[in-house]
């Protein structure tokens, strides 16, 4: 910095160091977009069936329900916490919907039960984490076993089937042409969370808490309340995903959505959400969902076994996270600010 003569005029600090275009080019999302385009082109090149609109529409089901969970989870992770119980909340919500269905519940009741179960489960996690100050990783590993355990007790090795025909609309219906109800929901929820995180003061508080919860509290942010709301939202989205998945499958087994918590975490982290909290954007999670969906679909078209897909997604995750570090190391002389 140049020494500046002190004068009586106030010296204003300028607003931004980098222009908007520079920020966009250097962003994580640009890198993900590049990866998405490459995977898209590889898919087009390797299978003649890939570009069919209805095939692509089917492919979206690979990520819509997981994406709903991942968006809310992204906010939880940015705040410096984690929710590993999401898939178990989904299972419990689906099970209770099935139980209600056997007692003659209609479509509105089923949806309310699905969402309500999510909210209650989220509130339990939220109270344990924010009120009692317990570490969320321990709390949600506990509730992960607890919630799915209840499903197993209710269902045993049986399954609920025979949901009302109207209920199928959520998971199997189409709003317009090839655009499914789930895809539209995915877009709406993505927009909702993007607006919440990037355009509201609530979103700003999430970043502050994730970066330094103590300083956030010392700045008058109600840390406990924000965290509680985030767990509530996470539970609600798991409930919404339960409605969609149950509707699409038309049945409930206690093993429903096993392992989805890790896929949702993967989606968030691949999307540039810092697993240690404090940074990341919803746009990245949308791109990560598209990438994971396309990889799954592309490999499916080529009859690649599922285990190879998970190896590929794992490698992709490590690769995408390692790239910026490697690039930084290759260009150490570049100065910042």
């Amino acid at each position, binding site marked *: 910095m140049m020494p500046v003569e002190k004068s009586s005029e106030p010296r*204003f*600090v300028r*607003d931004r160091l980098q222009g908007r275009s520079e920020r966009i080019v250097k962003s994580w999302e640009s890198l993900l977009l590049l990866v998405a385009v490459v995977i898209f082109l590889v898919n087009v090149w390797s299978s003649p069936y890939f570009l069919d609109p209805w095939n692509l529409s089917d492919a979206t089901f690979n990520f819509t329900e997981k994406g709903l969970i991942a968006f809310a989870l992204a906010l939880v992770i940015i705040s410096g916490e984690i929710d590993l119980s999401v898939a178990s909340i989904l299972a419990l919500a689906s099970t209770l919907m099935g139980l209600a269905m056997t007692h003659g519940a209609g479509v509105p009741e089923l949806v309310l039960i699905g969402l309500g179960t999510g909210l209650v489960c989220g509130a339990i996690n939220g109270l344990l984490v924010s009120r009692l100050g317990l570490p969320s990783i321990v709390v949600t590993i506990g509730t992960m076993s607890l919630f799915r355990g209840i499903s197993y007790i209710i269902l045993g090795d049986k399954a609920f089937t025979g949901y009302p025909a109207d209920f199928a609309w959520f998971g199997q219906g189409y709003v317009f042409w090839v655009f499914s109800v789930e895809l539209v929901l995915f877009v709406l929820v993505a927009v909702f969370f993007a607006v919440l995180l990037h355009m509201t003061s609530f979103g*700003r508080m999430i*970043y502050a808490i994730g970066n*330094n919860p103590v300083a956030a509290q010392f700045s008058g942010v109600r840390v406990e309340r924000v965290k509680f709301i985030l767990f509530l939202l996470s539970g609600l989205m798991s409930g919404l995903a339960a409605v969609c998945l149950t509707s699409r499958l038309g049945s409930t087994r206690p093993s429903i959505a096993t392992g989805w918590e890790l896929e949702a975490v993967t989606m968030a982290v691949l999307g540039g959400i810092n697993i240690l909290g404090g940074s990341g954007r919803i746009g990245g999670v949308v791109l990560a969902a598209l990438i994971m969906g396309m990889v799954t679909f592309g490999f499916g078209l080529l009859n690649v076994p599922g285990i190879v897909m998970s190896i590929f997604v794992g490698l992709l995750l490590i690769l995408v996270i390692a790239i910026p570090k490697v690039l930084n190391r290759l260009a150490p002389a570049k100065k910042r600010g």
Partner: protein
Amino acid sequence: MTSMTSSDIKADTGKVPESGPAIRLSGISKSFPGVRALNGVNLSLYPGSVTALVGENGAGKSTLVKILTGIYQPDEGEIRCDGAPVRFATTMDAARLGVTAIHQETVLFDELTVAENIFLGHQPKNRFGLIDWSRMNADARAILERIGARIDPEMRLRDLGIANRHLVAISRALSVNARVVIMDEPTAALSHKEIGELYELVFKLKAEGKAILFISHKFDEIFRIADRYTVFRDGEMVGEGLLADVSQNDLVRLMVGRDVGQVFPKVPAEIGGTVLTVSGYSHPTEFEDIGFDLKRGEILGFYGLIGAGRSEVMQALFGITRPSKGAIRIDNELAVIRSPAEAVARGIVYVPEDRGRQGAVTAMPIFANVTLPSLSRTSRHGFVRMAEEFALAREYTARLDLRAAALDQEVGTLSGGNQQKVVIAKWLATKPKVIILDEPTKGIDIGSKAAVHAFMSELAGQGLSVIMVSSEIPEIMGMSDRVIVMREGRIAGTFAREGLTPEMLVRAAAGIGETP
């Protein structure tokens, strides 16, 4: 394996007392991308002598310490040990040549014992190659006794206070037979009594023939314990010599390159009606029956030793901790404050002592830090408005004369003084009635210090009420309209500005009665 023992060194220095320096740095330069941190500086440290290194923050003192301890390699220049050229390629090299540093935040390990901390990396081994615990504990005890520390070597470090941690760090330095001891602001976090004990220790080390480099912002202590001085300014050495030949003003002039008229420019402000009344304020363990009132435009100083409960009272007023008894009145209205958010809403704000952890979200940009408590004002229906945010941040950072490249720069990249300005700007933007400053100038350079003091005066002049917790007597005496001294969780005395002497404060803080 060390071929040289401590007795050799003593014999050495005893033989040639006025010989050459133990270590001499000449023509040292070091650049970082965009910054020339050091430009051809010289520094000599003599056995049995304390050299004070002074300079504003950013003058290059820390860089020099890192070069001396092998963390950084100089781009140019030469280091000589006892006249022979050496290279500190790694921290191990520096340690092997007997250079050791006690930093402001020396890395120690909470979960290990005192003895383990002292001997980490060079523990005595038995014939099976395992740690010889009994010998290690005995050696640790011997070293601790040598410096007069009453610490059990088998205690876990986390059970020790900050002063005892310093003693452990110093013992660690002694355990490697150091010849050169670097002390980087060792008294910054210590209370009055502990500082006295540390001085004793410095004299002891000096008598043992160690060459000591003492870095401090406090002039009274520099003149009390150091023999020589070296002044850095903007990465260059601008003066060195014997302290006996210079005055405080000479040093300040060398440091800042200009005359500093008054370090504590408190201007008289009009004192108005009572804003805050605290009565019978108590906490189960931290403080008891605290009562005082604060008037408009007043600066109320809180003095006391570390652990006297000053910060705890302030944090209770700010809603961090919950008092068990007592009442707060703001503008004669009873107020219950259960969280910082409620305190801010009532017009009480708090600038904490621990800037990096409590004061600022260092990984977030300046503007977001400034607007964090004011988001409801810069947003509409919960939606943030960036233009409003930048306008607010621009206004208040300019009022504090913040030096930064841009408002979207991360706070963590600023110097300590500028980080403090961001924290204060954040609170002023909430238009508070009472601002509590907890050690507001701890560890910041003299230029920023003067800026913070001038600004406190200005705020009081505008009718804001200021509570200033400080352990620096000149600061307390220079800035306060009234001073409350706390001791062991209670108020030990209240003093008006007129006729206040440092002795009165020290006596009240230490609990010494009037003696004939």
